[in-house]
């Protein structure tokens, strides 16, 4: 198998390769952009900048070809059909699209199930639409190790009233991996459709939508070496066909009169207006970049670095590491805290030492409330992170202990 060489790869990421570059440990919030992705977007803007699906001149035809080519790359990457790949602004828009399109088909008494680890981009849309449509939301809890409580999942997923099950694949707050395939089986058993929030899994571990058998899957380009402002909604063709459009406008129609409109075919039915052409092309280049490194190799590297981080950090006195223990399948991040130090202070101290981490509730406030935490400090890892980064982190956390005299 290919191996990742983080030192060699660093030169691919302009922001990391300057003198005095900070140590970037925040890829779960947003990744870094490799030169190949920048070049692809630059090529569009410099050489064939035009709208797609419209012009009858070479630049527009090239733009359409590259835009649709990016869709094909993403389809191949996910093991989906290109008709099932809708470009959106990102995970948040994909999840809102689904909530807005599916909620009107729900009645009072119907149930929507999700985990307590969901991101605000899942919880808030469904919670707000529940007020309008009167359905109920049920949450699957976690155990003391931060693993999904499967006994409770099996119990909850017996109800025939469930119409939608929305599951985070890898928790951005704890690193927990949710057993999607097993839950999809249970959900389909009661006739529910399953949405997967794959923001933290795509690009970090193999994600095959046919293997997961989920009905929908959402993710963001910017967390997988792509640009900001582009993401994907995968939906099984039959499911997308059954749905009404989300946004109306150009491109999403086939025929319009003053009285009536007919919708375009998949996937364009869900892509109203001029899309983010450069973003899609950049995301396609990100898929190529991942392909060259090898997804298995990326996963192995990130797993090794994360395991080292957990080992090094757990030697520090008064540290608390949240989420599943070392040795279990885990996302490429570690959330931690020091007793007696507010996560904001700890993250700030690390930032002052040139280490970029995220501190706070990680857009999972309900989970933090459940755990009784003001927040956590989170380090997350990518292919350019090496062991030295982890060692620097452990030293800096150790020095925070000294500053606070705990």
């Amino acid at each position, binding site marked *: 198998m290919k191996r990742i060489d983080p030192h060699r790869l660093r030169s691919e990421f302009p922001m990391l390769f300057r003198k005095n570059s900070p*140590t970037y440990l925040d890829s779960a919030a947003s990744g870094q952009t490799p030169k190949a992705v920048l070049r692809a977007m630059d090529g569009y803007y410099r050489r064939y900048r035009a709208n797609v699906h419209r012009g009858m001149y070479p630049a527009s035809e090239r733009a359409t070809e590259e835009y649709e080519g990016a869709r094909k790359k993403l389809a191949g990457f996910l093991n989906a059909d290109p008709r099932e790949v809708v470009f959106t602004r990102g995970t948040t828009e994909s999840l809102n699209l689904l909530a807005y399109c599916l909620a009107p088909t729900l009645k009072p008494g119907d149930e929507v199930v999700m985990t307590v680890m969901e991101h605000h981009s899942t919880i808030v849309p469904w919670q707000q639409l529940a007020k309008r449509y009167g359905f109920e939301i049920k949450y699957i809890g976690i155990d003391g190790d931060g693993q999904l409580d499967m006994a409770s999942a099996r119990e909850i997923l017996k109800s025939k009233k469930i119409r939608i099950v929305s599951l985070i694949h890898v928790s951005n707050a704890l690193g927990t991996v949710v057993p999607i395939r097993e839950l999809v089986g249970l959900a389909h058993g009661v006739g529910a459709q399953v949405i997967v929030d794959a923001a933290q899994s795509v690009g970090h571990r193999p994600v095959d939508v046919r293997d997961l058998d989920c009905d929908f899957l959402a993710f963001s380009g910017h967390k997988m070496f792509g640009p900001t402002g582009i993401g994907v909604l995968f939906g099984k063709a039959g499911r997308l066909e059954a749905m009404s459009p989300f946004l109306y406008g150009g491109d999403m129609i086939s025929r319009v009169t003053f009285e009536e409109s007919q919708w375009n075919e998949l996937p364009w039915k869900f892509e109203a207006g001029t899309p983010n052409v450069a973003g899609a092309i950049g995301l396609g280049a990100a898929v190529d970049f991942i392909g060259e490194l090898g997804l298995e190799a990326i996963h192995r590297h990130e797993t090794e670095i994360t395991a080292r981080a957990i080992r090094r950090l757990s030697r520090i006195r008064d540290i608390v590491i949240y989420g599943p223990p070392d040795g279990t399948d885990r996302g490429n991040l570690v959330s931690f805290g020091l007793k007696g130090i507010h*996560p904001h*202070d700890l993250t700030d101290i690390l930032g002052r030492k040139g280490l970029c981490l995220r501190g*706070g509730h990680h857009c999972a406030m309900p989970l933090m409330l459940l755990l009784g935490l003001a*927040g956590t400090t989170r380090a997350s890892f990518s292919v350019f992170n090496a062991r030295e980064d982890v060692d620097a982190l452990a030293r800096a956390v150790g020095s925070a202990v000294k500053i606070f005299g705990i």
Partner: protein
Amino acid sequence: MSRRSPVDPVFRENIIDHYRNPRRFGLLDSPDFVRRESNFSCGDDLEFSVRVRKGAIVDVGFAGQGCALSIAAASMLSERAIGMRTADLESMADGDIVAMLGVGQLTGSRLRCATLALKALKGGLADWNKSRK
């Protein structure tokens, strides 16, 4: 990677001391007004109780939780506010808090932590003044 002095001014000893042993901690029994302010992004959540006599602040007590900067600022400002004319408190600005803390420059989210106490006291005072009219 940038090298900095081991003890950054933000986490100087007196900040840590006020954080560990906040002064005026605990709400007053019969305050003239109370005011709660939160910084949801980082979980700072403070409540102030204040007594006013003849246009001056005579007692302040606060409770809640937060990061070192928000607690240290609440502690120092509560001490300083006692004996102050209400008009003087109302004219305090964010820069005065940064100067009081002695932490050098503060940006964005850290400035919001440091000034949460002032926001609470000024907001509470403004509402109290209005309610008496």
